């Protein structure tokens, strides 16, 4: 069980983790405390491991800073469900092993703060009486997530997704 943190469209990486709070500026230990520090200051104080982010379109647009999804991972965010993701953010979050799902309806119909249960393997998000089937990610995404991220995937397989064994 986790709580939903709901966001709108076009949430950018400066909102998730402003550049001034980057590990480069303030050290990495404080990263989790700085997630949404200006955009939604109560987030870092109240977020609990297992909580889920539910967002609108183009979540994570802007900078390629991987410390934005890393901050969310450090906060214990179990998954991000959005109507759509910005390209670099999607790749960065996937590389860090954060489960990502696209869903039109879940993002619209589940309320902020609602308790939900997510079955990552089955791709089902349950909120109260309702179950939202989530679009299954492509096979290569599932393979990376299954290993817990790209570094783990690479260490196990010694190759990139889609690369023949040498």
């Amino acid at each position, binding site marked *: 069980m986790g709580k939903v943190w709901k966001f709108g469209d076009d949430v950018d990486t400066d909102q998730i983790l402003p550049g*001034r709070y980057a590990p*480069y500026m303030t050290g990495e230990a404080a990263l989790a405390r700085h997630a949404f520090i200006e955009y939604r200051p109560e987030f870092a104080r109240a977020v609990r491991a297992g909580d889920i982010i539910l967002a609108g379109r183009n979540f994570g647009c*802007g900078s390629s800073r*991987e*410390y934005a999804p890393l901050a969310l991972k450090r906060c214990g965010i179990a998954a991000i469900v959005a109507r759509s993701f*910005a390209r670099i953010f999607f790749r960065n979050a996937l590389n860090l092993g954060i489960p990502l799902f696209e869903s039109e309806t879940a993002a619209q119909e589940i309320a902020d703060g609602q308790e939900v249960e997510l079955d990552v393997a089955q791709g089902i998000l349950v909120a109260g009486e309702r179950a939202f089937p989530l679009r299954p990610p492509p096979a290569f995404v599932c393979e990376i997530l299954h290993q817990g991220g790209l570094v783990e995937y690479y260490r196990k397989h010694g190759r990139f997704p889609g690369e023949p064994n040498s």
Partner: protein
Amino acid sequence: MGQTLSEKIISRAAGHEVQAGDLAVVQVTMTMTVDSIAESVIKVLRQELGAKRVHDPERVALFVDHVAPACNPATADGQVLLRRFALEEGINRLYDVGRGICHQLMIEEGLVQPGTVALGSDSHATTYGAIGAFGTGMGTTDIALAFARGKTWLKVPESIKVQVHGAFSPGTTAKDLILWLIGRLGAEGASYRAVEFHGVEGSSLASRMTICSMATEMGAKAGLVPPDDLIRQHYPVPEWLYPDADATYVQEIMIDLSKIQPQVSLPHQVDRVAPVSQVQGVQVHQVFLGSCTNGRLEDLHLAASLLSGRHIARGVRLLVIPASHRVLMDAVADGTMSTLLAAGATVGTPGCGPCLGRHLGVLGAGEVCLSTSNRNFQGRMGSPEASIYLGSPATAAATALAGFIADPREYRQ
């Protein structure tokens, strides 16, 4: 089957023919990282991947530009680490404080070549498409893996074709074109796709870099201009590097340049675009002329042409930060710097400047900035209570003269 420019480049880099939608593992000819990301890349490379060395030090470039010179002990420590890494790995291409912005130097120093794949740990790596390279931004983990392997994996993007014709009307620039396009397509209008710009043969390399750098602001994986004689004069262009006439595009957009007016992005989203006439009169405290999008000699020339013999308005700060040391040297040599200084400009060390709100012109609560950079997200340049408008160097100069957002066509001389 005909191929787009992206499909051709990725096919070469993969060693076999690919088309949009395919997963490909490709040779990367240059991978770069910057001071703000280097520490995390080194950590993933050495501690998590357990790599002993980078794959090929000749295909790695390092830049100190995001906070240059350092603004506090933490950033200074990060830069010490980056310099030590360069020494230990035998990486010769380290561009330290004052040399300029990574994307500018990647092209200026010939670190990226037409027809190749180049990666940057910065989203504006799409800039390299200006010379016909497939440049794209990636995060820490992907960059570390490219350092370790000299390769990366990617999904071959579908392409959008933008066909422009006609000529810009006076006071209107490549920046206005790309802002207009972002306004039309939206912040995710080119998501996961490459954008090919056709018909811009008349434009300079600097203008092409402006256009390609901002392709990422509509979500694009790459922005490319098919190389022409201008590029051939300065870079080796392989004979196969052109899009086929029967290539498949998911969308085609025709633009008449003469219809484009000076454009401005309104706070706090790049795709909230309006003609400058709609926001004329908004009071401004700071004008920033610089960044990888608009910090080149051409941009300084344009601003100087409006500022020459005039002085900026009371209560306005005009920060000029050239994109590279060479741009600064050229602007000093041809008198542009004197013109800007005489008009009241403040000049900073070549680098990213205040674009990302860490130093050299951070905004306070309630302040308004007109910036020639590429992002106006809330809090991007400092206080979340500040407002950022994006515009061209001409709009920046007119605004500095007026003290409020102004139409550059009214300040031409």
